[in-house]
Every structure is written in structure tokens, then in C-alpha cells.
């Protein structure tokens, strides 16, 4: 049998109480863009569903030098903010208008690849996630939250309630390759953020989507860039390391072989966008 109870908590404490009461059999739903097709097709047969849309978790506000994004803020809200341009770009490249009106930023972190393009940008931005339970809150770097294909650090009694993003002024690059210009799953997604000190790269973040069990950081490629002036050789070495370090897969969108080729190409293009002299002005 399918859904017998639909619960719509009006606050976070109420939501956490329901989760504690029902345990792991309770299906938690935010925008429903992942869960509803599974329920409609009879693949998912939950007896109880908790919708989070009225739980007051949809805030999106700038507090000092951080952007605080409520877990159920929609992708459309993310598209309409201007504190972090890379997140606007990530939202614009995710799905269609109608899906962005329903889909949430928190939910996007649970979407299996090749979905979950927002997580790629959030990884490059050093985002953190706040997990709440009746035991209290804990904050984790997003990089530690994602642990495997549809697996993460969320405990049975926890809800993801907020995503925190440091607001910085450095130029960033976000590139997504799909089979169409819009509303398309990724062949590969690349997000890059560089910190500069005296014309040399002081720190680097390169995040990749659709080429691993979840959005991943290309840590070897990042390390190769530090101390360089982003000269062509450094870019080539980083692109090569990203190509070697990823775990692409074959699906209806692309083959493993093509994804691996495109990782190198798109890491190179993203880095070239950020090369001094050709920088496109910090979009």
C-alpha cells in the first residue's frame, strides 16, 4: 500500500518531533521533484510522508559575510539572489522554470548524479551544512557531508536545515556541459574558485559534477595550481589531474569515455576564464 499519512509540520521542532516519532520509515520530502515521480511510478511506497514546505526552512538571507540558505529555499530563490553570483549561475543551469519553482537547494544535495548541479557550486564555495535533530545541531563542511552515491552523513533522526556559504569577492567560473543548452542533465559540471596573492594562486577549489558517486573536489588538481600564475602548463597539469582523479559513468546522457574527455576540456576552459588578463570580470 502507498501513502496513508501526509504530515505538514509548521515549524522545525514539529518536524523533528515527527521524525523522531515515525523513525526512518518516514519519507521526508521538500520540493518533491525526486520523490513524487518515484511514488507515482510505484517504485517508492512510503506509508507516511512529511512535507517540509511549511516548516519555515525557506529563508535566504545575507548575514555579515555569509549567505544563509534555508534547506527548502527553492532554486528560483537561489536564481534571484545576487550575493553569490556562482550560485545564480548554478541555479540557472539546473532543470526548467517549473522544476526550479518546486525543487529546493537542500533537496538538490540529495539528488544522485548526473543531477545535483548546485552541490558542485556549493563545494567550490566551501559551503557548510547544518544538520538538526532533537539532540541539537551540528555543522559540517559540505565536502564531508557527501559520502557516496545517494549516501551522506545525515543520521536517522536528523534533518538538513541550512546551507551556509561564505561571501567572497574572488572571480569564479561555473561551466556545465549538457546535451542541450538548457533543462538538461549534465555530461559534466565544473565549478572553480581561486584565491590570489600577489599574482599567484594562493588557494584553489575545483569541484566536479556527474563524474563521481556525488559532487567531488578535484583535490590533486587544486594542489597543482597553488603558487602558479595560472600559466598554460599549470592549467594543463590541473586539467590532466582532474581527468585522472574522477570516476565518470555511462548513462543515457553520456558515456564514461566522453565524460572523462570533457572533464579535462572543461576544467581547462574554466581555468582559462580566470586567467589574469582574460578574466571575465568576476561573474
Amino acid at each position, binding site marked *: 500500500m502507498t501513502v496513508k499519512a501526509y504530515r505538514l509540520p509548521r515549524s522545525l521542532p514539529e518536524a523533528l518531533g515527527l521524525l523522531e516519532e515515525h523513525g526512518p520509515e518516514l519519507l521526508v520530502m521538500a520540493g518533491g521533484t525526486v520523490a513524487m515521480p518515484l511514488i507515482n511510478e510505484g517504485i517508492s511506497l512510503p506509508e507516511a510522508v512529511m512535507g517540509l514546505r511549511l516548516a519555515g526552512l525557506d529563508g535566504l538571507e545575507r548575514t555579515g559575510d555569509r549567505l544563509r540558505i534555508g534547506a527548502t529555499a527553492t532554486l528560483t530563490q537561489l536564481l534571484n539572489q545576487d550575493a553569490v553570483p556562482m550560485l545564480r549561475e548554478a541555479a540557472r543551469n539546473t532543470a526548467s522554470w517549473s522544476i526550479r519553482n518546486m525543487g529546493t537547494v537542500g533537496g538538490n544535495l540529495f539528488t544522485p548524479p548526473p543531477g545535483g548541479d548546485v552541490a558542485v557550486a556549493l563545494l567550490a564555495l566551501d559551503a557548510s551544512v547544518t544538520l538538526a535533530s532533537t539532540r541539537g545541531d551540528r555543522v559540517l563542511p559540505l565536502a564531508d557531508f557527501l559520502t557516496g*552515491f545517494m*549516501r551522506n552523513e545525515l543520521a*536517522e533522526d536528523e534533518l538538513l536545515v541550512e546551507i551556509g556559504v561564505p561571501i567572497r569577492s574572488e572571480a569564479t567560473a561555473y561551466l556545465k556541459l549538457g546535451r542541450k543548452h538548457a533543462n538538461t542533465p549534465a555530461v559534466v559540471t565544473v565549478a572553480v574558485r581561486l584565491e590570489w596573492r600577489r599574482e599567484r594562486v594562493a588557494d584553489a577549489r575545483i569541484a566536479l559534477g556527474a563524474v563521481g558517486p556525488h559532487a567531488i573536489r578535484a583535490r590533486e588538481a587544486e594542489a597543482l595550481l597553488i603558487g602558479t600564475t595560472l600559466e598554460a602548463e599549470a592549467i594543463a597539469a590541473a586539467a590532466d589531474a582532474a581527468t585522472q582523479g574522477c570516476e565518470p559513468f555511462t548513462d543515457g546522457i553520456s558515456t564514461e569515455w566522453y565524460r572523462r574527455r570533457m572533464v579535462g576540456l572543461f576544467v581547462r576552459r574554466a581555468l582559462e576564464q580566470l586567467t589574469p588578463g582574460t578574466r571575465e570580470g568576476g561573474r
Partner: protein
Amino acid sequence: MKIHGSHTMAAPRAAVFAAICDPDALLGVIPGCRAIEQVGDAEYRGEISLRLPGVVGTYRTVVRLLEADPPAYGRLEGQLDGSLGTVTGQATFRLTESGDRTTIDYEGNAVIGGPLARLDARFAEGLAGSLVKQGLRNLSTRLEADPPAGAASGRRQPTREIPA
């Protein structure tokens, strides 16, 4: 559905093999495992709950060790049974020791039935692979943090054939 892989941990082979056969150790290591008990010489029953994006469910599980050559090799068969379908499969694993480290190589094959079978094969394989990797990471953390006393390594015992 096929999965295979390899994982190296800083623990002696005998300790790794012992943990794989110890219900208490498995309870803390298998992702989502809520209960497990040994019901025969080489048979275990348990309950695993999975909270996945869009899908929740509790599965009863039975695992039988079909063949074992401690601490080097094991072959097992298992079944997961829940409201969303069944997963039945067989797997083999080999443990090789190098210094104070042990590498486990595993290979498994499973058939999915029921509503779960309509999921894209890549999803089932990706998920199963992730669960195994997470379980092995948990196992290394457990063994590396708390090495069992007197875990002698390398002693070969005769192959044991267990009737199904």
C-alpha cells in the same frame, strides 16, 4: 547487478576475517543495520533500514556463509526482503595481507525483484557499491581504533565446506 571492488585497511587479516563473522561487529559496520543475530553455524539474520532520497524502507536480511577458508577467503549468499522488493545474490571475498595491512577484494552478483527492479540499473549498482564501500570504511575505522587483543595473523586453517 554486479559489484566489485577492493579496500585496504590497517589491521591484521585474522582480525578482519573475525569481524566479518561477528554479528556485534557487523551491527556497527553495515550502513542502516538495526539488528543482526547469528542463527546457525554460518547463518545470520538481520534488519536493515535505508533512508534514501525519495525511498525509505526496512529490509529483512539473511546471509549464509557458504564456504570459508579463514582468514583468506569466503563465499556467501544473501537475501534482502522488504516492501519494495527483494535482492538476492552471492559474493566472494579474498583477504590478502601485506605487512600490517589487509586488502579485501570482493565481487558480487545480485538479482533485484519487485518495484525496486524498475530503478535504473546504474542506481542499484551505484547504491550497492556505495553501501559496501561505506561498510568497509566503517570496518577499517572500527578495527584501526580498537585492534582486537591477540589477533594472530597468517595462520591457515583447513577449508570448511558448509552445506547450504
